[in-house]
């Protein structure tokens, strides 16, 4: 049994959690994939922060309209029932808590729901934040879509973010290629583990204390257990 699902499967998994009738903003990058898996037989209304509610799919090459783009500056279409508005109104919509869900990428998410997704803080990097901080604090539910581990094997779920923060205590749920985690006042709760993953194996991968959704006793990672044993000495 595998321990990872594909990015497309993850997008599909997220799409399944979005209720019909929701107003949704899908962040730039991987979250955009979620749109491909929203059910055709339902109406879910997509917001793009550059000024459109009711965003449709990408047009064919012959129908690209440079005046009609999404936040990622890609060509899109507008559905019947769409509305255009300016940037202050668009971000008012977001900041005012009118969106039901936004889906964002992440470098790190902390146990208390802090999000880091805009800057690695690397020296020489050109900073660019766009709407990330507004999205992070704006929607009723903030879903993160990410691989659990970095390319070098480090957990993106962390006790505390070491990268520059995008928002404090803002993440509702983290969808990873290994499992789905809810952010709770008790830290991460494993809502759903994919394939062979278990709460224990996930605790080992993340180095975090994890609970399962049933409320059972937390699984401790080895490192955390060791640290706590040492503290007791």
């Amino acid at each position, binding site marked *: 049994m595998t321990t990872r699902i594909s990015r497309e499967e993850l997008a599909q998994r997220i799409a399944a959690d979005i209720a019909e009738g929701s107003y949704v903003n899908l962040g730039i990058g991987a979250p955009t994939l979620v749109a491909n898996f929203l059910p055709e037989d339902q109406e879910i209304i997509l917001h793009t922060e550059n000024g*459109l509610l009711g965003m449709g799919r990408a*047009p064919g090459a012959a129908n690209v309209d*440079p005046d009609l*783009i999404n936040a990622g500056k890609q060509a899109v279409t507008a559905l019947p029932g769409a509305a255009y508005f300016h940037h202050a109104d668009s971000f008012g919509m977001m900041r005012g808590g009118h969106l039901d869900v936004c889906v964002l990428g992440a470098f790190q998410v902390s146990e208390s729901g802090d999000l880091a997704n805009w800057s690695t803080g690397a020296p020489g990097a050109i900073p*660019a934040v766009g709407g990330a901080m507004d999205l992070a604090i704006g929607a009723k539910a903030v879903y993160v879509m990410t691989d659990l581990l970095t390319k070098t094997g480090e957990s993106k779920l962390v006790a505390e973010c070491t990268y520059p923060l995008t928002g404090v205590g803002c993440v509702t749920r983290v969808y990873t290629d290994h499992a789905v985690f809810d952010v709770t006042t008790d830290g991460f709760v494993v809502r759903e583990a994919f394939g062979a993953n278990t709460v224990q194996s996930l605790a080992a991968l993340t180095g975090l204390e994890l609970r399962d959704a049933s409320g059972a006793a937390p699984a401790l990672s080895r490192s955390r257990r060791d640290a706590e044993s040492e503290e007791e000495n």
Partner: protein
Amino acid sequence: MDVRIANTKGRAVIDKTVTDAESAVAGIPDGATVMIGGFGRAGQPIELIDALIAQGAGDLTIVNNNAGNGDTGLAALLAAKRVRRIICSFPRQHDSWVFDGLYRAGEIELEIVPQGNLAERIRAAGAGIGAFFSPTGVGTELAADKEQRRIDGRDYVLEYPINADFALVSALQADRWGNLVYRMTARNFGPIMASAATTTIVQVDKVVPLGELDPETVVTPGIFVDRVVEVGERVWLDDGAFVGGVDLEGRRIEPAAAGTNGGGL
């Protein structure tokens, strides 16, 4: 009022239109703060920026969501070394090589503002708000030096208005009073920037007779607009109807390259 009064049939009428982009950008001095509309390429007032480059003003502070795309428009203004400082939310893009080079060479100052705070600060300037508490950026390094306050259980940072001496905006149509309508997501920053500048300069595809714009659908009332120049229709429109045939940068593509997948709306 920076408004030209024309005499029409013995009647003094307000006529904010000017004959060409050169006249539109006249008088922008060195050291000015200039807002430039657009989100990426959409709604970027290319003809006005080109005229500004030709006009020669330098040492500018630019307010824009981005920091230029490719080698045209805002990127060309940067490349001409006319910009001392840029206030934006997202300078780094796949085609922002001009800005990237200047920044790494230490030849341009950068102030990064979260996009929604940027928009709201511009609106605040236009609406006479002295400052406002925003929840965006709380606890981040972009708010590190800002006043913070808890209101009704939520944390906010205090944000101040961004004013400008000039705004350069692109819209679809205007009348001689300066009323504006936009097209699709090219609207983006136009309406708020028009309200936040001392002098607002607008390029439009077309100037229409007064009374032709429906008062219900005017997005920017003329009170916010000082000068209007007609620059002709965007190449993907024909008499106001979308005809396509361009790529995202607005360059004509061969019908063959576009293929047969009509897709779209």
